[in-house]
């Protein structure tokens, strides 16, 4: 008589399958991201020479705008600080990748009807969800790692010595935490949905909404408090540069990701699977 395998074996089975399914998607997002960051970094020596010119121009921009777009305190002569001024775009790209991944990781099984076979296997839904979440986390952290590799690698290739490599590494660690939050929020807002197209739209709306919240909060003094609601606020590279390491907000990001995953698990365990 057949028996169910252990939860750990079932977890590994789903985990491997998820990684095998999603690695192409990772490459589709990561390769352009790495190319962009490599290109940006390769321009640092030139930008450093013309730093004073850019600094003068940035001084003319209102401080609120600089804060809103994360370019306050720009110092193009220092590699980490230079990268920080461009970092928002990478956190946004990574967030979109992570959010879509989170939004579709469960929804696609139901929408494509494959869930009917998966969830009739002798494994608890919690194990399936945790395996999928673990695979998703690995992928979004690989995205952050890939960007970091491209940045560090390009600086090394062009012969730039990093004065504060740990600070630059911290920027990618915080970005990784932000991606984990976006993955978890994508999962949470779509856990009751069974349509991946809707799920993707909902995730994109959430991500750009949260990003907009951070920008709007920086532009108006009366709205400053709303920035606290945006995960982007805790992941600003400028904050890492100012702190000289991991800011306390990183813990907020980790806590939000864990809370969202826990809630998604509870909701999914109670969900009726129809297809």
């Amino acid at each position, binding site marked *: 008589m057949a028996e*169910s395998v252990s939860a750990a074996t079932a977890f590994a*089975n789903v985990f491997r399958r998820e990684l095998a399914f999603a690695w192409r998607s990772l490459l589709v997002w990561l390769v352009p991201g790495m190319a962009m960051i490599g290109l940006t970094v390769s321009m640092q020596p030139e930008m450093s020479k013309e730093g004073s010119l850019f600094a003068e121009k940035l001084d003319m921009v209102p401080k609120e705008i600089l804060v809103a777009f994360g370019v306050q305190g720009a110092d193009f002569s220092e590699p980490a600080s230079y990268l920080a001024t461009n970092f928002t775009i990478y956190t946004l790209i990574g967030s979109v990748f992570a959010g879509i991944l989170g939004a579709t990781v469960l929804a696609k099984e139901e929408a494509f*009807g*494959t869930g009917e076979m998966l969830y009739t296997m002798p494994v608890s839904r919690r194990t399936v969800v945790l395996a999928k979440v673990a695979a998703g986390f690995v992928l979004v952290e690989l995205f952050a790692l890939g960007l970091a590799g491209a940045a560090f690698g390009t600086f090394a290739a062009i012969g730039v010595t990093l004065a504060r490599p740990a600070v630059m590494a911290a920027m990618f660690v915080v970005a990784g935490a932000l991606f984990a939050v976006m993955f978890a929020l994508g999962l949470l807002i779509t856990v009751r949905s069974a349509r991946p197209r809707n799920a993707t739209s909902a995730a994109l709306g959430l991500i750009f909404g949260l990003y907009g919240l951070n920008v709007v909060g920086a532009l108006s003094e009366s709205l400053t408090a709303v920035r606290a609601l945006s995960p982007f606020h805790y992941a600003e590279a400028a904050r890492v540069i100012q702190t000289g390491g991991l800011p306390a907000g990183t813990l907020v990001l980790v806590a939000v990701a864990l809370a969202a995953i826990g809630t998604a698990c509870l909701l999914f365990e109670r969900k009726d699977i129809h297809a």
Partner: protein
Amino acid sequence: MSTITLERLTKLYPGGRGVRDLDLTIERGEVFGFIGPNGAGKSTTLRTLLGLISPTAGRARILGLDARVDGPTVRARVGYLPSEPRLHDGMSVGAILAYLGRFFTPDSAARRRQLAEMMELDLSRRAEDLSIGNKKKVALVAALQHTPEVLLLDEPTSGLDPLIQARFFEVIQSERARGTTVFFSSHVMSEVERLCDRVAIIRDGRIVEMARMTELRARQFKQVRARLDPSDAAAELLGLAGVRDPVRDGERLSFVYQGDVKRLLGALAGAAVVDVTIEEPSLEEIVLSHYGKESRDG
């Protein structure tokens, strides 16, 4: 101990659809048919048994275990064939079956290969290239590869060509011989008739009839076709209680009879009968008569 037990199982959806107060027991080794039109509640019942959906009230038990609470333990001993199986695109048939097989121990690779051969499945083909019938064959192998004690089959032969249907019947017969309990939903009467020991008829989410196949036929009507001497009006025969829908066409007379067979034979003996055939109704006729009766009652 019964293999499958439903105790006042109820699952209601907005708009009033679903199943209500289903009571059912299926014994070990039985092949049980669940008959009804689309939307009657067959799939809802099967999905509740698998823990895919939670009942609004009542309980579903398999092998003495609660389908929802003991889900993984139950499902290790159950094979399930969905009515419209969907497979992971981008994977080969062999990879899909191996992936699903890895949820069970011991390894079922040998049986998987044997079943795939029996169903003439090409394990190297990719899921997205398969026809509906071939996808169904893959799902059937997936349902059987871990040698389950209970098989839950939802419209098992829909989409299968006649040759594969015949294979499917062979597989089910061999599972029955092995002592596997089979619970399958269908609206294809011929397969239910061919395979089942007992059937339940479900209508609008309620079980309206449950009986052994033999009982169902015996207590239901007979189709009588007689050839009579044209001069015989057959008044006594047609006046017999239980005769309905008579059609007279020259020497030919046909009618439906529901009642004591001895009285029917007596009436036939008194008529100028040249030839007669008395047939058991097909399951389809029984179900249709049941639905007709319900409609008339309703």
